[in-house]
């Protein structure tokens, strides 16, 4: 590792910028939508800036717009935990890569969003560049795009007051697209019907349990019971699978 003086823009930043261009598009667009949505609920650019700077988690921030309709810290904490549970596994696959990133490491961990994670997975650090500075450049560029998009969205909803009724569908569409992507990733369409149903069970459980809990507990209260029942059902499913495997395979220990 060479210890040259940091010059702006560093070769690491120059190499990182082109790789972040798809995220620039995506984050400006989604961040903008977040800002407009937040604005439609009466929150200004400061809230938008703080949320995107401090929370910096796309899906959760969209849910947070709804959570800001009623003051309930426990619900906010549990929703954040469940929505962000996937981060636990991003971190696990980054243990190796982040080793030796020194003083950049805390920020790299803080800023590990889905999109930045995908950039880390996309390709190796170009030869001759410092790995820690390269990863740091990818991370803060993405963060900057997200903040810029959301503040611009807030500003737009304030400067150009347009009829925002229905804008909340941006959130439904985002989650549906992610859901469809996960659905396709769970099982190839060529797989046997039985295997496909099995692979899609978690997604079906999520939708099914929520649809049952919604009328039972009402629109404002169904998230917490739904999350609990989903967790229990998935755990029971695993338990049942293990028993089945054990009974099919007498040699298994």
């Amino acid at each position, binding site marked *: 590792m060479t210890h040259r003086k940091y010059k702006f823009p560093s070769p690491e930043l120059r190499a990182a910028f082109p790789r972040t261009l798809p995220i620039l598009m995506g984050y400006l*667009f*989604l961040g903008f939508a977040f800002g407009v949505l937040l604005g439609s609920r*009466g*929150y200004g650019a400061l*809230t938008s800036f*703080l*949320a995107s700077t*401090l929370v*910096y*988690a796309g*899906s*959760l921030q969209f849910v*947070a717009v709804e959570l*800001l*309709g009623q*003051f309930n*810290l426990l619900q*906010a904490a549990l929703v*954040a*935990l*469940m*929505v*962000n*549970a*996937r*981060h*636990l*596994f991003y*971190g*696990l696959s980054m*243990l*190796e890569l*982040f080793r030796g990133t020194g003083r950049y490491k805390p920020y790299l*961990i*803080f800023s*590990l969003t889905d999109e930045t994670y995908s950039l880390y997975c996309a390709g190796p650090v170009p030869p001759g560049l410092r790995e820690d500075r390269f990863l740091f450049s990818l991370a803060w560029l993405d963060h900057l795009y997200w903040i810029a998009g959301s503040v611009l969205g807030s500003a737009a909803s304030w400067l150009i007051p347009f009829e925002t009724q*229905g*804008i909340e*569908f*941006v959130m*439904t*569409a985002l*989650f*549906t*697209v*992610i*859901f*469809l992507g*996960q659905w396709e990733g769970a099982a190839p369409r060529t797989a046997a019907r039985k295997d496909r149903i099995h692979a899609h069970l*978690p997604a079906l*459980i*999520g*939708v099914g*349990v929520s*649809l049952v809990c*919604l009328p039972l507990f009402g629109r404002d209260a*169904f*998230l917490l019971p*739904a999350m609990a029942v989903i967790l229990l059902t*998935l755990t029971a499913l695993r338990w049942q699978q293990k028993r089945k495997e054990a009974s099919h395979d007498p040699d298994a220990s």
Partner: protein
Amino acid sequence: MTLTPLETGATLLVLAGVTLLTRALPFWLFPGGRTLPPYIRYLGRVLPPAIMGMLVVYCLRDTVLLSYPYGIPEALALLTVFLLYRWKRNTLLCIGVSTVLYMVLVQAVF
């Protein structure tokens, strides 16, 4: 309802704290790259699609099914997301087109 600045700040701090916790936990728990308990690995695989399914239902919780407009705007917009995704696989295109369609439907048609 809009929260007071203090309530808003507290909510944001909780969200930020829990998010940071979920991102930092693996680095604390597995500093040496130890292998994960199988149950946790299993949850990592099945929880994301289940929670995303829950969030889709959460977003649609105010849909009016039993009286006018019978959930038609939501159904049409969701169908648009589905077909565009099948056709182009472009996230931003799906979101942009379906949201504009939904806004037109609820503001001008229904």
